[in-house]
Protein backbone atom coordinates (compact mmCIF):
# COMPACT_ATOMS: atom_id res chain seq x y z
CA UNK A 1 0.00 0.00 0.00
CA UNK A 2 2.93 2.36 0.52
CA UNK A 3 3.73 4.64 -2.38
CA UNK A 4 7.31 3.43 -2.57
CA UNK A 5 8.38 1.32 -5.52
CA UNK A 6 8.27 -2.46 -5.52
CA UNK A 7 11.09 -3.65 -3.23
CA UNK A 8 13.93 -5.71 -4.66
CA UNK A 9 14.70 -9.30 -3.79
CA UNK A 10 17.67 -8.20 -1.78
CA UNK A 11 15.44 -6.02 0.34
CA UNK A 12 13.08 -8.88 0.99
CA UNK A 13 15.99 -10.62 2.63
CA UNK A 14 17.56 -7.59 4.25
CA UNK A 15 14.71 -6.16 6.29
CA UNK A 16 13.72 -9.32 8.14
CA UNK A 17 17.34 -9.96 9.00
CA UNK A 18 17.72 -6.43 10.35
CA UNK A 19 14.53 -6.73 12.34
CA UNK A 20 15.64 -10.04 13.79
CA UNK A 21 19.05 -8.67 14.70
CA UNK A 22 17.36 -5.72 16.41
CA UNK A 23 15.13 -8.11 18.31
CA UNK A 24 18.05 -10.22 19.48
CA UNK A 25 19.97 -7.17 20.63
CA UNK A 26 16.97 -5.86 22.50
CA UNK A 27 16.56 -9.21 24.17
CA UNK A 28 20.25 -9.52 24.99
CA UNK A 29 20.53 -6.08 26.53
CA UNK A 30 17.25 -6.40 28.43
CA UNK A 31 18.62 -9.45 30.15
CA UNK A 32 21.84 -7.64 31.05
CA UNK A 33 20.23 -4.45 32.25
CA UNK A 34 17.54 -6.13 34.28
CA UNK A 35 20.16 -8.25 36.00
CA UNK A 36 17.92 -11.30 35.98
CA UNK A 37 19.47 -14.51 37.17
CA UNK A 38 16.88 -16.73 35.65
CA UNK A 39 15.66 -15.48 32.30
CA UNK A 40 18.03 -16.59 29.56
CA UNK A 41 19.85 -14.44 27.05
CA UNK A 42 19.83 -15.44 23.37
CA UNK A 43 23.27 -17.01 23.62
CA UNK A 44 22.19 -19.23 26.48
CA UNK A 45 19.15 -20.35 24.55
CA UNK A 46 21.35 -21.32 21.66
CA UNK A 47 23.62 -23.32 23.92
CA UNK A 48 20.59 -24.93 25.49
CA UNK A 49 19.36 -26.03 22.08
CA UNK A 50 22.69 -27.55 21.17
CA UNK A 51 22.72 -29.35 24.50
CA UNK A 52 19.33 -30.84 23.79
CA UNK A 53 20.37 -31.86 20.32
CA UNK A 54 23.48 -33.58 21.57
CA UNK A 55 21.63 -35.45 24.26
CA UNK A 56 19.18 -36.57 21.58
CA UNK A 57 16.30 -35.37 23.72
CA UNK A 58 15.19 -32.82 21.20
CA UNK A 59 14.86 -35.21 18.28
CA UNK A 60 12.90 -37.66 20.38
CA UNK A 61 10.53 -35.02 21.64
CA UNK A 62 10.04 -33.53 18.21
CA UNK A 63 9.32 -37.02 16.92
CA UNK A 64 6.76 -37.70 19.65
CA UNK A 65 4.92 -34.46 19.06
CA UNK A 66 4.88 -34.92 15.29
CA UNK A 67 3.68 -38.47 15.58
CA UNK A 68 0.76 -37.52 17.78
CA UNK A 69 -0.18 -34.71 15.42
CA UNK A 70 0.07 -37.06 12.47
CA UNK A 71 -2.30 -39.59 13.98
CA UNK A 72 -4.77 -37.12 15.47
CA UNK A 73 -4.83 -34.88 12.43
CA UNK A 74 -4.96 -37.84 10.09
CA UNK A 75 -7.95 -39.27 11.91
CA UNK A 76 -9.69 -35.88 11.91
CA UNK A 77 -9.12 -35.67 8.16
CA UNK A 78 -10.44 -39.15 7.45
CA UNK A 79 -13.59 -38.59 9.48
CA UNK A 80 -14.02 -34.88 8.94
CA UNK A 81 -13.74 -34.58 5.18
CA UNK A 82 -16.52 -37.02 4.24
CA UNK A 83 -18.70 -35.64 7.04
CA UNK A 84 -18.07 -32.07 5.98
CA UNK A 85 -18.79 -32.85 2.36
CA UNK A 86 -22.07 -34.45 3.39
CA UNK A 87 -23.07 -31.47 5.48
CA UNK A 88 -22.28 -29.12 2.64
CA UNK A 89 -24.16 -31.14 0.07
CA UNK A 90 -27.29 -31.92 2.02
CA UNK A 91 -28.51 -28.66 3.46
CA UNK A 92 -31.00 -30.58 5.53
CA UNK A 93 -28.32 -32.57 7.34
CA UNK A 94 -26.38 -29.40 7.96
CA UNK A 95 -29.36 -27.68 9.48
CA UNK A 96 -29.93 -30.53 11.91
CA UNK A 97 -26.36 -31.09 13.04
CA UNK A 98 -25.03 -27.55 13.01
CA UNK A 99 -26.43 -26.41 16.38
CA UNK A 100 -24.70 -29.31 18.14
CA UNK A 101 -21.43 -28.37 16.50
CA UNK A 102 -21.85 -24.73 17.45
CA UNK A 103 -22.08 -25.68 21.11
CA UNK A 104 -19.20 -28.15 21.03
CA UNK A 105 -16.87 -25.94 19.06
CA UNK A 106 -16.10 -23.26 21.69
CA UNK A 107 -15.08 -25.90 24.21
CA UNK A 108 -11.30 -25.87 24.29
CA UNK A 109 -9.86 -29.30 23.44
CA UNK A 110 -7.94 -29.07 26.72
CA UNK A 111 -11.23 -29.00 28.57
CA UNK A 112 -11.89 -32.46 27.17
CA UNK A 113 -8.95 -33.90 29.10
CA UNK A 114 -10.96 -35.40 31.97
CA UNK A 115 -13.36 -37.02 29.53
CA UNK A 116 -10.46 -38.18 27.38
CA UNK A 117 -8.79 -39.74 30.39
CA UNK A 118 -11.95 -41.62 31.27
CA UNK A 119 -12.10 -43.20 27.85
CA UNK A 120 -8.45 -43.48 26.97
CA UNK A 121 -6.55 -43.34 30.23
CA UNK A 122 -3.53 -41.14 30.74
CA UNK A 123 -1.11 -41.21 27.86
CA UNK A 124 -0.74 -40.98 24.12
CA UNK A 125 -4.28 -41.94 23.18
CA UNK A 126 -5.79 -39.20 25.28
CA UNK A 127 -3.47 -36.67 23.67
CA UNK A 128 -4.34 -37.93 20.21
CA UNK A 129 -8.04 -37.68 21.05
CA UNK A 130 -7.55 -34.05 22.03
CA UNK A 131 -5.76 -33.31 18.76
CA UNK A 132 -8.59 -34.99 16.93
CA UNK A 133 -11.14 -32.83 18.75
CA UNK A 134 -9.20 -29.70 17.95
CA UNK A 135 -8.75 -30.41 14.25
CA UNK A 136 -12.11 -32.01 13.60
CA UNK A 137 -14.42 -29.00 13.70
CA UNK A 138 -12.42 -26.66 11.45
CA UNK A 139 -12.11 -29.44 8.86
CA UNK A 140 -15.83 -30.19 8.86
CA UNK A 141 -16.73 -26.52 8.62
CA UNK A 142 -14.24 -25.86 5.82
CA UNK A 143 -15.44 -28.83 3.77
CA UNK A 144 -19.06 -27.88 4.30
CA UNK A 145 -18.42 -24.31 3.22
CA UNK A 146 -16.33 -25.44 0.29
CA UNK A 147 -19.14 -27.57 -1.04
CA UNK A 148 -21.93 -25.10 -0.50
CA UNK A 149 -19.86 -22.36 -2.12
CA UNK A 150 -19.42 -24.23 -5.37
CA UNK A 151 -20.98 -21.94 -7.98
CA UNK A 152 -24.23 -23.15 -9.48
CA UNK A 153 -22.70 -22.80 -12.96
CA UNK A 154 -20.34 -25.68 -12.35
CA UNK A 155 -23.03 -27.93 -10.99
CA UNK A 156 -25.30 -27.19 -13.93
CA UNK A 157 -22.51 -27.79 -16.40
CA UNK A 158 -21.79 -31.14 -14.77
CA UNK A 159 -25.40 -32.24 -14.94
CA UNK A 160 -25.63 -30.94 -18.50
CA UNK A 161 -22.93 -33.34 -19.62
CA UNK A 162 -24.88 -36.23 -18.20
CA UNK A 163 -22.97 -36.87 -14.97
CA UNK A 164 -24.60 -39.15 -12.42
CA UNK A 165 -24.70 -37.76 -8.86
CA UNK A 166 -21.61 -39.68 -7.69
CA UNK A 167 -19.71 -38.60 -10.78
CA UNK A 168 -20.85 -35.03 -10.18
CA UNK A 169 -19.48 -35.15 -6.65
CA UNK A 170 -16.13 -36.60 -7.70
CA UNK A 171 -15.53 -34.67 -10.92
CA UNK A 172 -17.06 -31.28 -10.20
CA UNK A 173 -17.96 -30.63 -6.56
CA UNK A 174 -14.79 -31.98 -5.00
CA UNK A 175 -12.29 -30.25 -7.32
CA UNK A 176 -14.25 -27.03 -7.07
CA UNK A 177 -14.26 -27.18 -3.27
CA UNK A 178 -10.67 -28.33 -2.97
CA UNK A 179 -9.03 -24.91 -2.46
CA UNK A 180 -11.25 -24.19 0.51
CA UNK A 181 -10.76 -27.68 1.86
CA UNK A 182 -7.01 -27.28 1.72
CA UNK A 183 -7.15 -23.96 3.55
CA UNK A 184 -9.28 -25.62 6.19
CA UNK A 185 -6.76 -28.43 6.51
CA UNK A 186 -3.90 -25.99 6.85
CA UNK A 187 -5.70 -24.08 9.62
CA UNK A 188 -6.65 -27.32 11.33
CA UNK A 189 -3.04 -28.46 11.25
CA UNK A 190 -2.04 -25.21 12.93
CA UNK A 191 -4.61 -25.87 15.61
CA UNK A 192 -3.43 -29.45 15.98
CA UNK A 193 0.07 -28.16 16.59
CA UNK A 194 -1.18 -25.81 19.30
CA UNK A 195 -3.22 -28.55 20.93
CA UNK A 196 -0.45 -31.14 20.97
CA UNK A 197 1.85 -28.78 22.84
CA UNK A 198 -0.88 -28.00 25.36
CA UNK A 199 -1.88 -31.64 25.71
CA UNK A 200 1.71 -32.64 26.33
CA UNK A 201 1.93 -30.17 29.15
CA UNK A 202 -0.85 -31.94 30.97
CA UNK A 203 -1.42 -35.48 29.90
CA UNK A 204 1.78 -37.14 28.73
CA UNK A 205 5.46 -37.21 29.50
CA UNK A 206 7.23 -36.76 26.22
CA UNK A 207 7.08 -34.26 23.42
CA UNK A 208 7.90 -30.58 23.08
CA UNK A 209 5.12 -29.41 25.38
CA UNK A 210 6.34 -31.71 28.09
CA UNK A 211 9.87 -30.48 27.50
CA UNK A 212 8.75 -26.92 28.19
CA UNK A 213 7.11 -27.80 31.50
CA UNK A 214 9.72 -30.30 32.56
CA UNK A 215 12.67 -28.02 31.94
CA UNK A 216 11.21 -25.57 34.36
CA UNK A 217 9.98 -28.00 36.95
CA UNK A 218 13.12 -30.04 37.21
CA UNK A 219 15.77 -27.38 37.62
CA UNK A 220 14.39 -24.03 36.43
CA UNK A 221 16.27 -24.46 33.16
CA UNK A 222 14.65 -21.50 31.46
CA UNK A 223 17.22 -21.65 28.71
CA UNK A 224 15.79 -25.03 27.75
CA UNK A 225 12.26 -23.71 28.14
CA UNK A 226 12.90 -20.98 25.62
CA UNK A 227 14.85 -23.36 23.37
CA UNK A 228 11.85 -25.67 23.28
CA UNK A 229 9.55 -22.72 22.54
CA UNK A 230 11.71 -21.70 19.63
CA UNK A 231 11.56 -25.22 18.22
CA UNK A 232 7.80 -25.23 18.63
CA UNK A 233 7.53 -22.02 16.66
CA UNK A 234 9.90 -23.10 13.91
CA UNK A 235 8.34 -26.52 13.37
CA UNK A 236 4.85 -25.05 13.43
CA UNK A 237 5.95 -22.63 10.74
CA UNK A 238 7.48 -25.41 8.64
CA UNK A 239 4.23 -27.38 8.80
CA UNK A 240 2.34 -24.31 7.65
CA UNK A 241 4.75 -23.67 4.79
CA UNK A 242 4.50 -27.27 3.60
CA UNK A 243 0.79 -26.86 3.29
CA UNK A 244 1.15 -23.60 1.46
CA UNK A 245 3.24 -25.43 -1.10
CA UNK A 246 0.26 -27.66 -1.69
CA UNK A 247 -1.80 -24.59 -2.37
CA UNK A 248 0.43 -23.70 -5.29
CA UNK A 249 -0.26 -26.84 -7.28
CA UNK A 250 -1.78 -25.72 -10.54
CA UNK A 251 -5.04 -27.56 -10.34
CA UNK A 252 -5.73 -25.85 -7.03
CA UNK A 253 -3.95 -22.52 -7.33
CA UNK A 254 -6.87 -20.89 -9.09
CA UNK A 255 -8.75 -20.74 -5.80
CA UNK A 256 -6.28 -18.56 -3.93
CA UNK A 257 -5.55 -14.89 -3.86
CA UNK A 258 -2.53 -13.40 -2.14
CA UNK A 259 -2.88 -14.04 1.53
CA UNK A 260 -0.94 -14.46 4.70
Amino acid sequence: MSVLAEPSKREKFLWPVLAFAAFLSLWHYSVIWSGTKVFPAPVQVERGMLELFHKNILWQDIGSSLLRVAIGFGAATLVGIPLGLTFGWYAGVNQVVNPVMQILRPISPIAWIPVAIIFFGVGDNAAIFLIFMGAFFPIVVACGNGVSNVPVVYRRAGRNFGLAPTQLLARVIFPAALPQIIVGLRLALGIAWLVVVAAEMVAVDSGLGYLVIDSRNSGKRYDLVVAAMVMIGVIGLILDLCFRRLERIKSVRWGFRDEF
Partner: protein
Amino acid sequence: MKLLVRLRPIVFIAGLLAAWEIAVERHPNYILPGPWAVVGGIADLLHHGFLFKYVVASLFRVTWGFCLAAIVGIPLGLMIGWHRRSEMALNPMVQVFRPISPLAWIPIAILWFGVGDAAAIFLIFLGCFFPLLLTGINAVRNVPAVYIHAGRNFGLSPAQLVYNVLYPAVVPQLLIGLRITLGVAWLVVVAAEMIAVDSGLGFLIVDARNAGNRYDLVLAGMVIIGIIGLLLDTAMRSLEKVKSFRWAYSEE
Protein backbone atom coordinates in the same frame (compact mmCIF):
# COMPACT_ATOMS: atom_id res chain seq x y z
CA MET B 1 -44.29 -27.32 7.77
CA LYS B 2 -41.69 -24.68 8.46
CA LEU B 3 -42.08 -25.29 12.18
CA LEU B 4 -41.30 -28.98 11.71
CA VAL B 5 -38.13 -28.14 9.87
CA ARG B 6 -37.03 -25.79 12.62
CA LEU B 7 -37.69 -28.44 15.23
CA ARG B 8 -35.47 -31.02 13.56
CA PRO B 9 -32.20 -29.91 15.19
CA ILE B 10 -33.87 -29.94 18.60
CA VAL B 11 -35.19 -33.44 17.97
CA PHE B 12 -31.70 -34.46 16.95
CA ILE B 13 -30.18 -33.09 20.15
CA ALA B 14 -32.90 -34.72 22.21
CA GLY B 15 -32.11 -37.99 20.46
CA LEU B 16 -28.41 -37.69 21.26
CA LEU B 17 -29.14 -36.93 24.90
CA ALA B 18 -31.48 -39.88 25.13
CA ALA B 19 -28.86 -42.18 23.62
CA TRP B 20 -26.30 -40.84 26.07
CA GLU B 21 -28.61 -41.42 29.04
CA ILE B 22 -29.37 -44.96 27.92
CA ALA B 23 -25.69 -45.74 27.39
CA VAL B 24 -24.86 -44.51 30.88
CA GLU B 25 -27.60 -46.56 32.48
CA ARG B 26 -26.47 -49.66 30.65
CA HIS B 27 -22.91 -49.28 31.95
CA PRO B 28 -23.14 -48.24 35.57
CA ASN B 29 -19.44 -48.99 36.06
CA TYR B 30 -18.37 -46.13 33.89
CA ILE B 31 -17.62 -42.96 35.79
CA LEU B 32 -19.14 -40.82 33.04
CA PRO B 33 -22.43 -39.33 34.23
CA GLY B 34 -25.60 -39.01 32.15
CA PRO B 35 -27.32 -35.81 31.03
CA TRP B 36 -29.58 -35.56 34.06
CA ALA B 37 -26.59 -35.77 36.36
CA VAL B 38 -25.00 -32.92 34.43
CA VAL B 39 -28.11 -30.79 34.81
CA GLY B 40 -27.96 -31.59 38.51
CA GLY B 41 -24.35 -30.48 38.49
CA ILE B 42 -25.24 -27.14 36.93
CA ALA B 43 -27.97 -26.64 39.50
CA ASP B 44 -25.50 -27.52 42.22
CA LEU B 45 -23.03 -24.92 41.03
CA LEU B 46 -25.72 -22.29 40.77
CA HIS B 47 -26.89 -23.07 44.24
CA HIS B 48 -23.51 -22.71 45.83
CA GLY B 49 -22.74 -19.58 43.92
CA PHE B 50 -19.71 -21.06 42.18
CA LEU B 51 -21.19 -20.82 38.73
CA PHE B 52 -21.55 -17.10 38.79
CA LYS B 53 -18.19 -16.57 40.45
CA TYR B 54 -16.27 -18.72 37.99
CA VAL B 55 -18.02 -17.39 34.91
CA VAL B 56 -17.23 -13.85 35.99
CA ALA B 57 -13.60 -14.76 36.68
CA SER B 58 -13.16 -16.30 33.21
CA LEU B 59 -14.96 -13.46 31.46
CA PHE B 60 -12.91 -10.92 33.36
CA ARG B 61 -9.65 -12.42 32.16
CA VAL B 62 -10.88 -12.78 28.62
CA THR B 63 -12.04 -9.19 28.50
CA TRP B 64 -8.77 -7.80 29.73
CA GLY B 65 -6.53 -10.00 27.62
CA PHE B 66 -8.62 -9.59 24.50
CA CYS B 67 -9.05 -5.83 24.78
CA LEU B 68 -5.37 -5.24 25.47
CA ALA B 69 -4.44 -7.36 22.48
CA ALA B 70 -6.93 -5.48 20.32
CA ILE B 71 -5.79 -2.04 21.44
CA VAL B 72 -2.15 -2.89 20.81
CA GLY B 73 -2.41 -5.35 17.97
CA ILE B 74 -4.88 -3.80 15.58
CA PRO B 75 -3.40 -0.32 15.23
CA LEU B 76 0.04 -1.89 15.02
CA GLY B 77 -1.21 -4.28 12.36
CA LEU B 78 -2.82 -1.49 10.38
CA MET B 79 0.36 0.54 10.45
CA ILE B 80 2.57 -2.37 9.51
CA GLY B 81 0.22 -3.38 6.73
CA TRP B 82 0.31 0.11 5.31
CA HIS B 83 4.09 0.32 5.32
CA ARG B 84 5.42 -2.32 2.97
CA ARG B 85 8.89 -2.50 4.42
CA SER B 86 7.78 -2.90 8.01
CA GLU B 87 5.67 -5.79 6.93
CA MET B 88 8.59 -7.38 5.14
CA ALA B 89 10.77 -6.91 8.20
CA LEU B 90 8.41 -8.17 10.85
CA ASN B 91 6.40 -10.84 9.09
CA PRO B 92 8.94 -13.68 9.39
CA MET B 93 9.24 -13.20 13.14
CA VAL B 94 5.49 -13.03 13.57
CA GLN B 95 5.19 -16.28 11.62
CA VAL B 96 7.58 -17.97 14.02
CA PHE B 97 5.84 -16.66 17.12
CA ARG B 98 2.37 -17.48 15.94
CA PRO B 99 2.49 -21.31 16.11
CA ILE B 100 3.75 -21.25 19.70
CA SER B 101 0.78 -22.19 21.83
CA PRO B 102 0.11 -19.54 24.49
CA LEU B 103 0.27 -22.37 27.00
CA ALA B 104 3.92 -22.92 26.13
CA TRP B 105 4.48 -19.46 27.56
CA ILE B 106 3.22 -20.56 30.98
CA PRO B 107 6.64 -20.96 32.63
CA ILE B 108 7.66 -17.50 31.45
CA ALA B 109 4.29 -16.06 32.40
CA ILE B 110 4.62 -17.41 35.90
CA LEU B 111 8.20 -16.21 36.09
CA TRP B 112 7.20 -12.68 35.19
CA PHE B 113 3.76 -12.44 36.80
CA GLY B 114 3.51 -15.18 39.36
CA VAL B 115 0.50 -17.43 39.63
CA GLY B 116 -2.72 -15.51 39.26
CA ASP B 117 -4.85 -13.27 37.15
CA ALA B 118 -2.01 -11.31 35.57
CA ALA B 119 -0.39 -14.45 34.19
CA ALA B 120 -3.69 -15.66 32.75
CA ILE B 121 -4.36 -12.29 31.15
CA PHE B 122 -0.86 -12.32 29.70
CA LEU B 123 -1.50 -15.71 28.10
CA ILE B 124 -4.77 -14.55 26.63
CA PHE B 125 -3.05 -11.43 25.38
CA LEU B 126 -0.46 -13.56 23.61
CA GLY B 127 -3.08 -15.83 22.14
CA CYS B 128 -4.96 -12.85 20.71
CA PHE B 129 -2.16 -10.50 19.82
CA PHE B 130 -0.70 -12.32 16.82
CA PRO B 131 -3.99 -13.16 15.13
CA LEU B 132 -5.20 -9.57 15.57
CA LEU B 133 -1.91 -8.21 14.29
CA LEU B 134 -2.28 -10.31 11.16
CA THR B 135 -5.91 -9.30 10.86
CA GLY B 136 -4.88 -5.67 10.83
CA ILE B 137 -2.16 -6.28 8.27
CA ASN B 138 -4.43 -8.23 5.96
CA ALA B 139 -7.27 -5.77 6.30
CA VAL B 140 -5.11 -2.91 5.11
CA ARG B 141 -3.57 -4.92 2.32
CA ASN B 142 -7.00 -5.86 1.05
CA VAL B 143 -8.27 -2.32 0.72
CA PRO B 144 -8.68 -1.88 -3.03
CA ALA B 145 -6.21 0.62 -4.41
CA VAL B 146 -9.07 2.34 -6.22
CA TYR B 147 -10.49 3.57 -2.94
CA ILE B 148 -7.21 5.18 -1.96
CA HIS B 149 -6.80 6.75 -5.37
CA ALA B 150 -10.33 8.11 -5.29
CA GLY B 151 -9.67 9.58 -1.86
CA ARG B 152 -6.51 11.28 -3.04
CA ASN B 153 -8.26 12.41 -6.20
CA PHE B 154 -10.81 14.29 -4.15
CA GLY B 155 -8.03 16.04 -2.28
CA LEU B 156 -8.40 14.37 1.10
CA SER B 157 -5.70 15.09 3.64
CA PRO B 158 -3.96 12.05 5.17
CA ALA B 159 -6.10 12.29 8.29
CA GLN B 160 -9.27 12.52 6.24
CA LEU B 161 -8.08 9.63 4.11
CA VAL B 162 -7.70 7.46 7.18
CA TYR B 163 -11.01 8.49 8.69
CA ASN B 164 -13.20 8.61 5.60
CA VAL B 165 -11.72 5.88 3.43
CA LEU B 166 -9.44 3.49 5.29
CA TYR B 167 -11.42 3.05 8.46
CA PRO B 168 -14.76 2.13 6.82
CA ALA B 169 -12.89 -0.06 4.37
CA VAL B 170 -11.09 -2.13 7.00
CA VAL B 171 -13.81 -2.37 9.63
CA PRO B 172 -15.71 -5.34 8.16
CA GLN B 173 -12.59 -7.49 8.00
CA LEU B 174 -11.52 -6.35 11.44
CA LEU B 175 -14.86 -7.39 12.87
CA ILE B 176 -14.54 -10.87 11.46
CA GLY B 177 -11.00 -11.13 12.80
CA LEU B 178 -12.12 -9.90 16.20
CA ARG B 179 -14.89 -12.44 16.35
CA ILE B 180 -12.63 -15.34 15.46
CA THR B 181 -9.95 -14.15 17.90
CA LEU B 182 -12.50 -13.83 20.66
CA GLY B 183 -13.22 -17.49 20.13
CA VAL B 184 -9.52 -18.18 20.46
CA ALA B 185 -9.37 -16.11 23.65
CA TRP B 186 -12.15 -18.21 25.11
CA LEU B 187 -10.27 -21.40 24.30
CA VAL B 188 -7.05 -20.07 25.80
CA VAL B 189 -8.63 -18.85 29.05
CA VAL B 190 -10.13 -22.23 29.77
CA ALA B 191 -6.84 -24.01 29.06
CA ALA B 192 -4.86 -21.47 31.03
CA GLU B 193 -7.15 -21.82 33.99
CA MET B 194 -6.73 -25.56 33.95
CA ILE B 195 -3.01 -25.20 34.33
CA ALA B 196 -2.05 -21.96 35.92
CA VAL B 197 -4.73 -20.36 38.09
CA ASP B 198 -7.19 -21.27 40.80
CA SER B 199 -10.51 -19.89 39.76
CA GLY B 200 -12.59 -19.78 36.64
CA LEU B 201 -14.36 -22.38 34.51
CA GLY B 202 -11.17 -24.13 33.44
CA PHE B 203 -10.12 -24.48 37.04
CA LEU B 204 -13.58 -25.82 37.85
CA ILE B 205 -13.04 -28.70 35.48
CA VAL B 206 -9.68 -29.66 36.87
CA ASP B 207 -10.68 -29.14 40.47
CA ALA B 208 -13.95 -31.07 40.22
CA ARG B 209 -12.06 -34.06 39.00
CA ASN B 210 -9.11 -33.85 41.35
CA ALA B 211 -11.09 -33.17 44.50
CA GLY B 212 -13.51 -36.08 44.33
CA ASN B 213 -14.06 -37.27 40.77
CA ARG B 214 -17.17 -35.10 40.43
CA TYR B 215 -17.55 -35.74 36.72
CA ASP B 216 -21.02 -34.33 36.77
CA LEU B 217 -19.44 -30.99 37.58
CA VAL B 218 -16.74 -31.54 34.98
CA LEU B 219 -19.30 -31.99 32.27
CA ALA B 220 -21.45 -29.21 33.67
CA GLY B 221 -18.44 -26.96 33.35
CA MET B 222 -17.89 -28.05 29.75
CA VAL B 223 -21.49 -27.38 28.83
CA ILE B 224 -21.36 -23.93 30.33
CA ILE B 225 -18.09 -23.21 28.53
CA GLY B 226 -19.70 -24.21 25.26
CA ILE B 227 -22.77 -22.10 25.82
CA ILE B 228 -20.90 -18.98 26.85
CA GLY B 229 -18.50 -19.38 23.97
CA LEU B 230 -21.46 -19.59 21.62
CA LEU B 231 -23.06 -16.50 23.20
CA LEU B 232 -19.86 -14.52 22.76
CA ASP B 233 -19.69 -15.55 19.12
CA THR B 234 -23.34 -14.65 18.55
CA ALA B 235 -22.85 -11.27 20.15
CA MET B 236 -19.94 -10.50 17.83
CA ARG B 237 -21.93 -11.64 14.83
CA SER B 238 -24.74 -9.27 15.66
CA LEU B 239 -22.16 -6.48 15.64
CA GLU B 240 -21.31 -7.45 12.10
CA LYS B 241 -24.94 -7.04 11.22
CA VAL B 242 -25.04 -3.37 12.14
CA LYS B 243 -26.05 -1.67 8.92
CA SER B 244 -23.17 0.66 8.45
CA PHE B 245 -20.80 -2.29 8.47
CA ARG B 246 -22.84 -4.49 6.20
CA TRP B 247 -21.66 -3.07 2.92
CA ALA B 248 -18.68 -5.37 2.62
CA TYR B 249 -20.62 -8.54 3.30
CA SER B 250 -23.39 -7.92 0.80
CA GLU B 251 -20.79 -7.48 -1.89
CA GLU B 252 -19.60 -11.00 -1.47
